[in-house]
């Protein structure tokens, strides 16, 4: 395929993906907004006042970057895993496999679809946040970079999950038993400086902690990472390294036909 044909094919996949999640907006866009609103009402307005300061910020101010990131991560992941597995399940993935599309374009199309939903939901959550708190952003470039790269990473994760999934149960196991615990223990609602030393060390093994804190740093200008002796650059490096690793694994399995060819 010529570069122009590849570009058209990529736009087709992306259009189809965006069209898919927009068509079911009541399932894809509204629930995160409602959930975040509840978090703000319960943890921010009602309980937050009693908590007081967290990491040197108002509790609601502290929580906002984590909640935005949580929405971006879970929506990027779930968009790709449900869409790609759905296509596998309905056999409509065959539509793509019989075309001249190279594997990297299939992967890129789905990842961009995941990023589109992640960013859209992230944007909605940000708007909801602004209703509750007057937020200012410390470093726009860094915040955009972190949110997009994290979205890419979790879209790749969703793709990998979908390749291996053989039933609808398989696409909910990782989000439920691995991702959600890592997100909740990744410092969305609390500063890990509150933890005993042992659990602080354990928390540092959680990659999502770095992403949430890098994003919090870009919004608030401070996070747990520097307090624990890590630079924001190390978080950025880690995100990029994971993206390269996950993309390589996805392409390898696509090439091998894992889960899509017999």
């Amino acid at each position, binding site marked *: *395929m*010529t570069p*122009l*044909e*590849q570009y*058209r*094919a990529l*736009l*087709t*996949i992306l*259009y*189809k993906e965006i*069209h898919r999640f927009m*068509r079911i907006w009541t399932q894809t866009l509204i629930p995160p907004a409602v959930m975040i609103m509840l978090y703000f009402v319960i943890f921010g307005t009602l309980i937050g006042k009693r908590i007081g300061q967290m990491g040197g910020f108002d509790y609601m101010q502290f929580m906002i970057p984590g909640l935005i990131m949580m929405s971006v991560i879970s929506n990027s992941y779930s968009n790709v895993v449900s869409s790609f597995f*759905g*296509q596998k399940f*309905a*056999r*409509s993935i*065959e*539509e*793509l*496999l*019989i*075309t*001249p*599309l*190279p594997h990297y374009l299939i992967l890129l199309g789905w990842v961009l679809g995941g990023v589109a939903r992640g960013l859209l939901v992230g944007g909605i959550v940000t708007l909801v946040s602004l209703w509750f708190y007057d937020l200012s952003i410390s470093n726009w470039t860094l915040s955009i970079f972190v949110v997009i790269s994290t979205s890419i990473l979790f879209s790749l994760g969703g793709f990998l999950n979908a390749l291996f999934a053989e039933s609808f149960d398989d696409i909910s196991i990782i989000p439920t038993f691995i991702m959600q615990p890592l997100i909740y223990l990744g410092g969305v609602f609390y500063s890990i400086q509150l933890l005993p030393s042992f659990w602080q060390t354990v928390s540092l093994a959680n990659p999502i902690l770095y992403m949430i804190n890098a994003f919090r740093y870009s919004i608030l200008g401070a996070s747990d990472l520097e307090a624990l002796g890590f630079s924001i650059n190390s978080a950025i490096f880690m995100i990029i390294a994971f993206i390269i690793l996950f993309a390589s694994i996805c392409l390898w399995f696509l090439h091998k*036909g894992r889960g899509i*060819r*017999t």
Partner: protein
Amino acid sequence: MKALSISNLKKEYTGGLQALKGIDLEVNQGDFFALLGPNGAGKSTTIGVISSLVTKTSGQVKILDIDIDENHSLAKKKLGVVGQEVNFNQFEKVGDIIRNQAGYHGLSFKEARENAKYYMQKLDIWDKRNEQARKLSGGMKRRVMVAKALVNNPELLILDEPTAGVDIELRRSLWDFLTEINNEGTTIILTTHYLEEAERLCRNIAIIDSGEIVENTSMQELLTRLEEETFIFDLKNPVKVLPKNLGYEAVLENPQKLKVTIGKGQGLNTIFEVLSNSGIQISSMRNDTGRLEELFMGLVDSNLNGSER
């Protein structure tokens, strides 16, 4: 140039099942080719390998002289495939499904829209373009699949049982359409369980059984191998008893329908003469369907017996 060239193609599934045992197959450009075989013979696996849905164990596949391993992208540009089962997102609109397929091939938006419109009109689904595919009947979904396979104007079209489960009217209109695009130059490979369909449409035929090609010849040549042929005579007036010494194996199926089996070398003239002399008038005559079926069963049975030995 060969539209399709397969050499020593093998497929062994995990668990040791040998679906293809080194098949060789060539299909000429412009041909209307039938690939027949019983269930589990290897037809769909062969099509799967050609269309990249199945990973081959070894062997070579070329589409219009382009090796699918060496230049996957270019080879695929020339291919259109109608799968055995519905393989599109049924929650999408018919028009979107077909236009998107054109997009996956890299066609511009304008080309995609024009091609989709052309094939939707040709296949009588233009008025369904804004309907969700899941609301269509089985036959209509088949038409969508054919339009989807053709939207990139492929030079080689493979249809895996395209008329399975569709009504006679649709089957015949699909036959006419396939004949038309074949006459315009598209090479067509057809697998079907309706041998009458293969006999009517295809010029050449291969029969696959247990992962091996057991016959590969022209339809004409294959049919001449029939040792005997059965004809149905519709009689003008009811007949109660057949004259003796007809010289043919004949059965009066009902008072106005006579079934006659004619052996190789026996002519039809005598039967007309004998019937006429007995006062029996014929209003029409036709081949009993199932000529190819008889041959097919013979070939598959002999292969089965051979493999059992």
